[in-house]
C-alpha cells in the first residue's frame, strides 16, 4: 500500500511541476507568439474572400477542409442514427 502511495505522490509531483512550469511559460493573454497568420487574415479577409465576417471566411474559405470533415461527421451521425432506428418489417 505504501509503495502505491509513494508512486502516486511521485507522479503527482512530476505532473504538478510540468503543469506549473507550463502555465508560467504560456504567453500572456491576447499576445500570441505567432501572430503573422492572424494579422494576415485580419488584413486580407475582406479583399480575398469578400466577407465582412472573418470567422465565416476562415471556416468556409481558408479552412474549408475542416468544415468538410465537420459536415462528414454530421452526415455519418445521421446515417448511423437512421440505421439504428430504422423501421423493421415484422414477419
Amino acid at each position: 500500500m505504501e509503495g502505491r502511495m509513494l508512486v502516486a505522490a511521485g507522479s503527482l509531483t512530476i505532473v504538478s511541476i510540468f503543469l506549473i512550469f507550463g502555465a508560467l511559460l504560456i504567453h500572456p493573454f491576447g499576445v500570441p507568439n505567432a501572430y503573422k497568420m492572424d494579422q494576415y487574415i485580419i488584413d486580407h479577409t475582406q479583399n480575398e474572400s469578400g466577407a465582412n465576417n472573418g470567422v465565416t471566411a476562415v471556416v468556409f474559405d481558408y479552412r474549408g477542409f475542416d468544415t468538410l470533415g465537420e459536415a462528414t461527421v454530421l452526415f455519418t451521425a445521421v446515417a448511423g442514427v437512421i440505421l439504428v432506428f430504422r423501421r423493421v418489417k415484422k414477419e
Partner: protein
Amino acid sequence: MMSKIVKTIAGISFPFITIYGLYVIAHGHLTPGGGFQGGAIVASGLILLLVAYGTDWIIEKIKESHLSILESLGALGFIGVAFLGLIFGGMFFTNFIAGTSMLFGGIPTSTAANINTGGTLPLMNFAVGLKVIAGLFAIVLVMAYAISKEEGE
C-alpha cells in the same frame, strides 16, 4: 401530444424561429452565425412542432427519407461548390466568385453589411444550412418515431 395551450404557442412561435434561423443562415458572411448555427435554430423550431403536435402528425407531413434526400443534397452542394472552385479557380475550395461581377461577387469597401458580397461563402452557408436542418431534424424524428412505436405496443 401536448395540450392546446402548448400547441397554440408552438404554432405561433414556429414561424418566428424559422425566419430567425433563415436570417442567420443567409447573413452568415456578415453577422455572427452561419450554416451550422442557423440550421440548428431552424431544426429546433421543427423539433418544437414535433414535441407539441406529436410524432404521428408530423410523420404524415414529412418522411425521414425525404429528409435524407435533403441532407444529401446539402452535402453534394457543399462539395459541388468546392469542386467548382477546383475547376474555375485551380484549387479545391477556391473562392472563385469573390471579386467578379457574379451574384455575391462584390468586395466590401467598409464594415457596413452588404448582402451581395462573400463569393462562395453564402452558397456554402446555404448548402450547410440545408444539410444541418435536414440532418438534425431527421435524427430527432427517427428517434421520436421509434419511441412512440415502442410505447404504442
